[in-house]
């Protein structure tokens, strides 16, 4: 039991690794949400006060933070499932690459989201299962490719590092949103 616990702990990312990957996820989640907000704001302003619009934005930013944490948890869980050399040793590269892929898939799905409402029962289970299996299958492939091509690995690290700039902007925005939501629902 202790051995298992130690083994799992060893597969957890360090703070710096976690921040880098979390930043990539935050970038996708917040950028998309803000893009949609800007798309909607002119409509909201037709019938809501600026104050009301700000409250809505606080809610959606709080949610974007929650969503980022949820996706990050999925990446960490994948890291726990795989042998250390496939994931933990390249956590930033693996986590960032998976996050980017998930983000791109989600972006493409959002463009045709109404199709989900036409899925048959089996498809509602099969498609997410395929994506999950695909993500799991990608881990060793990513590991191989990034080990084989060092430049790609450097590129992934550089991108993740630059994403932390957005994280320093987006995470406080999300936290302010959380405070607003808590305050409005308590009182």
């Amino acid at each position, binding site marked *: 039991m202790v051995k298992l616990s130690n083994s799992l702990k060893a597969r957890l990312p360090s703070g710096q690794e976690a921040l880098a990957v979390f930043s990539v996820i935050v970038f*996708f*989640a917040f950028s*998309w*949400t803000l893009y*949609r*907000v800007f798309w*909607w704001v002119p409509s*909201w*302003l*037709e*019938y*809501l006060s600026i104050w*009301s619009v700000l*409250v*809505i934005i606080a*809610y*959606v930013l709080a*949610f*974007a933070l929650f*969503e980022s944490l*949820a*996706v990050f948890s999925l990446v960490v869980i994948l890291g726990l499932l795989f042998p250390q050399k496939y994931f933990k040793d390249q956590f930033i590269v693996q986590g960032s690459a998976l996050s980017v892929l*998930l*983000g791109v898939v*989600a*972006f493409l*799905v*959002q*463009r045709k*989201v*109404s199709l*989900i*409402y036409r*899925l*048959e*029962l089996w498809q*509602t*289970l099969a*498609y*997410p299962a395929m994506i999950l299996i695909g993500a799991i299958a990608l881990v060793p492939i990513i590991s191989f490719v990034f080990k084989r091509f060092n430049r790609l690995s450097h590129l992934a690290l550089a991108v993740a590092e630059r994403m932390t700039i957005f994280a320093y902007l987006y995470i406080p925005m999300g936290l302010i949103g959380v405070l607003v*939501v808590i305050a*409005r*629902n*308590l*009182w």
Partner: protein
Amino acid sequence: MKPTLNRRDFLKLAATASLTPLLRALPGSAQQQELPNIIIILFDALCALNLSAYGYARQTSPNMERFASRATVYHNHHSAGNFTTPSTASLFTGTYPWTHRALNLSSLISPAVRPHNLFHLLDKAFNQVAYTQNVYTDTLLYLYEQYLDRHLPLDSFTLSGNVFYDNLFPNDAIYGLKSVDQFLFKREEAHGSLFLSILNDLSTQFTTQLYSQRLKQEYPNGLPRIANTDVYFRLDQVMDGVMDLLSGLTQPSFAYVHLMPPHAPYTPAQPYLGLFDDGWAPPPKKKHRLAAGISEERLAELRRTYDQFVANLDNEFGRLLDDMESNGLFENSCVILTSDHGEIFERGAHGHSMPLVFEPNIRIPLIISAPGQRQRQDITALTSNVDLLPSLLQIAGLPTPDWSEGMALPGLGGVQIPDRSIYVVEAKANPSYRPLRKATVALIRGKYKLIHYLGYRYYRDNYEFFDLENDPEELNNVYSSHPAAKDLQAELDHKLAEVNQPFI
């Protein structure tokens, strides 16, 4: 100089002075000590012109006819708007959309008008219960949360799917709705949430498909769904829930029950699918320039499915009537059957939320049964849903507030005014707090109806005028030739200038 007693004041005075037989029949009116229950049952998008209770060619509503046989039937009742938000806001506030400003689909009632509402006025005298399946009405009800003793969540009595705002943010439901349900997880449109909204869609679709397969025999056209949500329900289960709700009322209660059927999607249960295969169709009408251009064949098909759904609803309403009768609710309650707006299947147009305000869009049923009423009474006077607020106040023995733009209904303390003017306002493309520049506004006075289209591209500042008595189907626009048209135009222009003034 402003007259001390204007026309509206005179009408209100006349209304309170003449208590009609129906009002006298109310055991709970001001004349007696105990107030009756007031129960409003509102079916969304129920057009009076599609009800056999109102003379429709198809037998869509035998149970509503049964209800009408012991009630007062208003034959010329109109909604103040042609979709839910403005029309229910008018019902709650007794004001027209240009006053309460809930002009758009997701609008709220303006802060200035918010304190002026039915729930506030009835608060001290009644236990107040509200349940709506319409998400936009639910938003308005949350404005009045402090007056409600019981406010049932939108997804009560339903099968699958859920709404987040009711469950996660009960203390801040309006913003929960606007941010989570209507943005982050907005249905059938790119969502505000990138990742989790997709999981939510998949899980919703999974449960929906599960129930659809399980209930395919009963609902071959699909399960009834609360429009603009992913919440599915069985009509009979919802009606069972309403029966439980009403049987548990403590007198005196004011209950507002607003059910989604027969609003689209039209999903009648299996026994109703074979109905009305009769080839019947109303007179064909020329396509309107502001309509979507749907073919006559498609409109006939949609109308038939709608009529089937109405018949399905009527059957459930019959069960509710039986239950209320067995509980003795008719003896101590004023029961009101109405709708928020109509539904149109003509001129190339289908639905209700559009720039058109022809009669099918705005003619709604209003049938009121006073406590212990046994005889039918028919009222042909022109009435509007802004009249419900003053009428219910009459029942409660309360005066009509001077801010109300309605007047007590004939039969409920009001008088019939032959040349009364009522208005219909459709302005969903107009910003809420700006003058009405893009809108359709109708004035109905006596037998005449004038429609003014403002600001639409290719149909800017057009007028249409109809003589409803001689041309009830609104086939002949006689704006340019009828002598009364200019008179109504002057009145409407004057009214528009007046209501726009505070926003210029």
